[in-house]
């Protein structure tokens, strides 16, 4: 019987199946960062247990680390203790790779894994972080877990799982210039809602998806969780294989040849059946901007803020009204007229080299609007930063008035000093516009790197398609 990609990956990892369908699933790669792991290591120790397979672990510090003045170390004592706890835990148990604070390869865990070839097709990848769905771009079964499950994976190399339903998101056609993977992700969320993918494993397919680079596919899978799905995937093709060739932890020589033969089977068979199929036309997707406090509160750049009065569902209407109050916006305001205080280019959604190149292309030779308080570029990893500097992107950003920072999660969740002040409005390339996400009282609008760059220059949102 023809199988979906998800079914193949599932079958390949079942260690044991109980009568009720709960399965013990083997975990190939365990990504670890400082925020969700300390209690897991402590629990392991308290129970007198040993980690099962430390060579599955790739660890880095990212959420809490500062993005400037690295010479001063981590000034916040509570954050420093957490990062030091990660250091101590990894030094004690070991890992395949560890990129501590200030390491040249340190960075956001979901940027670091793939760029080092530590994420390989067909793997199960887990991390105590919901955006682990990112790694599904490599045809992996990759999803976020809680800290109890981090401990469970450390102790047993397995997780207890129930099989998800499957949803195919087919996007066919050609994306217009200036329309990116981020816009596709937001357009999908606009269509199915933030709970639309709950209980499903998503597979993104169609000619528009095949046309995306690996980095674009990572952006898309990264946002699967914002559509309610724990995991999103893209099948292996030549783009996948080309990306992996020569990466530090990718196989080499004869092993590479064998691996590639296997990887090519990692796609849904023709005629495989999905529990749900959603189709979008790439041509219909325009640059997206969120206006509210949930990623599903999103419209195209040439639209206006929607009017709650037009919403028939009372719970939804109340949610919209509350969002507009929080965002300090009125109904029917054209998106282009929304003025900004800060711009943030970064996060595991959009901080890879192609994101920075695309933003730099918009910014080149121009100046950040004088009305802006801060425009920030935070590369996803030390390697991305170095590459960007070799290409002179840092100079382009600096000359325009952007700050060029050290890698980390930064203002995506504002655990470090990079944050919005109450009432400040930000165009952000990150993935969540929840209340307070970028700082208590901060107002976030999610956009692509190109759109964020264009907004930084104009001081308000504008249609990047008109600038290209």
């Amino acid at each position, binding site marked *: 019987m023809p199988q979906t990609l998800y079914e193949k990956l599932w079958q390949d990892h079942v260690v044991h199946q109980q009568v*009720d369908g709960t399965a013990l699933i083997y975990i190939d790669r365990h990504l670890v960062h400082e925020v969700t792991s300390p209690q897991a290591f402590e629990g392991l120790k308290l129970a007198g247990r040993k980690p099962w397979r430390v060579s599955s672990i790739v660890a880095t510090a990212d959420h809490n680390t500062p993005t400037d003045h690295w010479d001063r170390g981590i000034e916040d004592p509570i954050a420093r*203790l957490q990062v030091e706890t990660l250091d101590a835990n990894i030094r004690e148990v070991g890992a395949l790779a560890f990129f501590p604070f200030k390491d040249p390869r340190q960075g956001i865990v979901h940027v670091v894994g793939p760029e080092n070839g530590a994420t390989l097709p067909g793997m199960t990848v887990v991390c105590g972080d919901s955006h682990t769905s990112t790694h599904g771009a490599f045809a992996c079964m990759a999803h976020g877990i809680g*800290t109890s499950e981090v401990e469970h994976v450390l102790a*047993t190399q397995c997780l207890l799982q129930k099989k998800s339903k499957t949803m195919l998101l087919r996007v066919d056609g050609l994306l217009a210039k200036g329309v990116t993977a981020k816009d596709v992700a937001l357009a999908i969320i606009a269509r199915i809602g933030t709970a639309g993918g709950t209980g499903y494993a998503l597979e993104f397919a169609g000619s528009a998806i095949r046309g995306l680079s690996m980095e674009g596919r990572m952006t898309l899978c990264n946002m699967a969780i914002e559509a309610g799905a724990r995991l999103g995937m893209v099948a292996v093709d030549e783009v996948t294989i080309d990306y992996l060739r020569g990466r530090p932890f990718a196989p080499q020589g004869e092993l590479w040849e064998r691996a590639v033969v296997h990887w090519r089977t990692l796609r849904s068979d023709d005629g495989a059946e999905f529990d749900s199929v959603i189709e979008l036309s790439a041509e219909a997707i325009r640059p997206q901007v969120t206006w509210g406090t*949930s990623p599903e509160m999103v419209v195209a750049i040439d639209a206006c803020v929607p009017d709650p009065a037009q919403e028939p569902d009372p719970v939804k209407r109340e*949610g919209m009204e509350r969002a507009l109050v929080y965002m300090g916006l009125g109904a029917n305001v054209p998106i282009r007229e929304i003025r900004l205080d800060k711009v943030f280019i970064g996060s595991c959604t959009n901080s890879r080299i192609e994101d920075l190149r695309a933003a730099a292309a918009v910014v080149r030779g121009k100046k950040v609007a004088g009305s802006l308080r801060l425009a920030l570029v935070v590369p996803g990893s030390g390697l991305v930063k170095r590459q960007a500097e070799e290409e002179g992107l840092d100079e382009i950003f600096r000359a325009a008035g952007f700050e060029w920072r050290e890698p980390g999660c930064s203002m995506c969740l504002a655990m470090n000093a990079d944050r919005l002040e109450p009432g400040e409005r930000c165009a952000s390339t990150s993935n969540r516009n929840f209340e307070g*996400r970028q700082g208590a009282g901060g107002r976030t609008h999610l956009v692509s790197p190109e759109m964020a760059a264009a907004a930084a220059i104009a001081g308000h949102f504008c249609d990047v398609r008109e600038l290209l």
Partner: protein
Amino acid sequence: MDKFVRLEGLVAPLDRANVDTDAIIPKQFLKSIKRSGFGPNLFDEWRYLDVGEPGKDNSQRPLKPDFVLNQARYQGAQILLTRKNFGCGSSREHAPWALLDFGFRAVIAESFADIFFNNCFKNGILPIVLPASDVDALFALVDSTPACRLLVDLEQQQVVCPDGKVLPFAVDAFRKECLLNGWDDIGLTLRHAELIKAFEERRRSEQPWLFA
């Protein structure tokens, strides 16, 4: 993990859909390396007028009087009643830790986000999915009944209202068993250690590149 069998407790209504884990416990409290002590900062931005920081004395902070958990009638609540897609967003287990530390042992909603739902069971919290009509009825009941208490019976898989009305709910058989007995997942899984080893060996020979 503490067992969950039956719970008779006060209900607090949080009438919002899509409550995310950033709202349940804001990021600044994630810097802790402990599992406990998050209760005073549960829903921090909705509960207090000022901005919370780790180490601040929460008993001295000004409260937002309108927020449901600040109202006298809901003090001591153990059951949270809310709307659909509760617990969306970040995978932080600090969210169920904060709910538990505050005193909640059960959450009733029309639907939950996957990771949060899973995390609840690992911490002895029962997330109960009820149809929208039942959730609506419960909101009305809590609104009209001072100090409304519900009986949550996991064994019978039902919520019993003060007027005797019974609302049945579904729960995964394995998760139910774990909660009823307070079982630790890791111990259960390690009973299959030989199977895991055999699987791992086979995998290592078939796909050696995964074991670099």
